[in-house]
């Protein structure tokens, strides 16, 4: 179903491919509204999925340019070279994106984290407390859904957390 790609002129096609790769790498993917006049919803979805899959497959199996070109020429003869060029220029980024996807191959993976240090000057009972507190917020991707986790820790708790993380890192280093 990639023949529909032939309906676009070459510059637009290159741009579309680049934006698809952007989406693959975690940036903003192209939206259908821009191409609404060219393709129907079904065509759009099919084209998008098959192009993305093609990029993933070509980078993942590390196939040679000739193989990809042959495959492309079967599907969409007109822009085969343009698509191949996009693939050649973005090979590294796609590879990194695929690697990070593989890294997150467990039930829950850390997507993002942020921390801020706060100083509690006093409480309702003690006038001068001066206790540092760390609030740590984690964004955990769990079965595809993003779940925020917020923790506030005192100094001792934080050092316990850090020591356990260091132990985990040590195990990782031993694996190497």
């Amino acid at each position, binding site marked *: 179903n990639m023949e529909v790609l032939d309906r676009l002129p070459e510059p637009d096609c290159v741009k579309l491919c*680049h934006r698809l790769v952007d989406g693959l790498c975690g940036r903003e993917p192209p939206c259908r509204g821009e191409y609404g006049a060219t393709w129907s919803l079904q065509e759009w979805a099919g084209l998008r999925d098959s192009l993305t899959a093609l990029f993933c497959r070509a980078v993942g199996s590390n196939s040679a340019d000739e193989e990809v070109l042959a495959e492309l020429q079967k599907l969409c003869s007109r822009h085969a070279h343009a698509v191949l*060029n996009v693939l*050649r220029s973005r090979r590294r980024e796609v590879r990194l994106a695929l690697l990070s996807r593989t890294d997150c191959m467990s039930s829950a993976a850390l997507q993002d984290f942020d921390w801020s240090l706060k100083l509690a*000057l006093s409480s309702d009972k003690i006038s001068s407390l*001066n206790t540092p507190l760390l609030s740590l917020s984690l964004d955990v991707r769990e079965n595809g859904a993003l779940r925020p986790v917020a923790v506030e820790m005192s100094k001792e708790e934080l050092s316990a957390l850090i020591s356990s993380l260091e132990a985990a890192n040590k195990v990782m280093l031993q*694996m190497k």
Partner: protein
Amino acid sequence: MMEEVDRILIHALRQVGTEVDEDVDSIRQFTSELLVEGVVRCIRVIDPGLGGGLAPSLPPGMSARFRVGMSLAQACQDVGYKGEIGYQTFLYSSEPEIRSLLMFLVEKLPRESAEASAQPSGKSAVLQRAIAAAIRAQLDLAWVPPNCSLPLHCETQSGGVLNSFYTQPLSSPHCTKGSEENLKEVKEYRRDVLPPVTAQFSSSASMVASLLEQHAAELSAAQEWDGEWKSQGLLSRLTPQEYRSRKLARLQKRIQEQLRSAAQPSSESAFGVSRPASDLMDVLQSFRASAPTEHVLKKGTHFTHTQKFTFTQEAAAAAAVTPILSAQESSGDVQLRQQEELSALQAQFQQLCSDVDHLAADMRRTAVTHAQVLDELKQRELGNTEKEEKLQVKKKTIDLLPEADNNVIQLQSLVEASAKRVVNLASQWEKRRAPLIDEHRRLKEICSRQDLDSSRKLSEIKSLHEKIHVSTEEAKKKEETYKQLLTELESLPQDASRSAYTQRILEIVSNIKKQKEEITKILSDTRELQKEINSLTGKLDRTFAVTDELVFKDAKKDESVRKSYKYLAALHENCNQLIQTIEDTGTILREIRDLEEQIETENGNKTVANLERILDDFKAIRQENAALAAKVKEG
């Protein structure tokens, strides 16, 4: 000396809150107003309850002034001043009195500055003080609605757009390295298509976060690589590329081993595969879809085969029995027959089980015998080949037998020739060998030396790395301490440094010591002089007595000697008088000096001026009294 004291006093008074003009730099220049203000402020600080009722300025009316002076003197005595004090101290001031009073009051002042410097210093204290100051400043500002907030409030009261830290991956050309750097397509992509980093985000909020994140990730990766390279990479004596590729190969091998070891136990216990293991099998299957996994996985043990076999047989038997069972429907016999059949079947089952056991045992036995037989066969074959070789040797010997002598000689010559050749070759080999061995040894030595060299250099490099690390750390630490000290220095009070005072005090003490020494010297001088005078007087007396006696003896005989005796007596008398006069002059001179000093001090007390002022004030009081009396009369 006194200027120093005055400066300290004036500084202390300024700190208390008295407004002393810039050009006033000694106590002499103090006016009554200034003095009253300073004393009142000091008393307020020393004892707020006592100082609260005192006015810091002199009233215009003379009698009121007098009262203020009286109450101030009383307050000073209450605080603990022991010296002479009265209203005159404030109204008709003399310099020494004021100085001693002010010195007493300043001594009494609570040591604010000492407390301030005794506060815990250090980084945390500085930070906490800064926080406290910032909060105080924020509390001082009035709250205003966000709409009408001034730039002044922006910092503290803006409801602000606080963005949470969300990152997005971004692409920038600088961070890539490697062989594809020079690819034409990559260059074109970067030139034509790749938007600048600032345009790569859907929302501008995550831009800074993403940039920071990217930078931190690259930095930590570089640091990790650096550390690893320094600790292990250098020791492996490979180029970085080689080291990397070796590590990659090692990792891959390890992963493969892990996967294999995870896969093995599940194939061993194929009968009781647990759930997670089967999941892993799925994963593995998807990994190598083309590989003939079926074969590996389904290859069960002996036991599974027998088990399977047994169960299928039994099922077949059961299937054969059931139709007969269902055909007959007489209910009476059914149970009995069922039981019979059950027992029969159980017997059969047991029979079969024991059969199976037997068979298994048989199989095992036959397997063992099979192996034994195989071993035997091998041994026999070995024996055969040996025997064949022997046979051939014997055959040749038999062939040679007919011409035995000839053959023996030939053989002997052959043997000798070959022995010679062997010796020859050995000598040649020796000749060749010696230089080769030398060469080998030499090369080995060079090799070991180079090894040593390189390991030494490696350790040097390592120690250098460590040193660099340590010194950067130290530099950082020192920089921080420097900054901290700088802030502390800024926060310290700039004026009246303590060290200057102590130095001054030390100087004064040393001066006093010197003066004391001089005084003792003068004293000892005086004492010596006294001694000399005494001894001289004694000598004189004795000489006079002797002379007097001698002359007196002769005086009875000779007239001229008598005259001379008279003269002697007169001389003695006159000299005594002279000495007396000199002593008197000395006492009078001392008295004069004392009086002059007294005059000086009286002059210092400004008695005349004060008297004039007292007269004026007296006149003023009389006028006031007269005015009051007139008012009373009018009233």
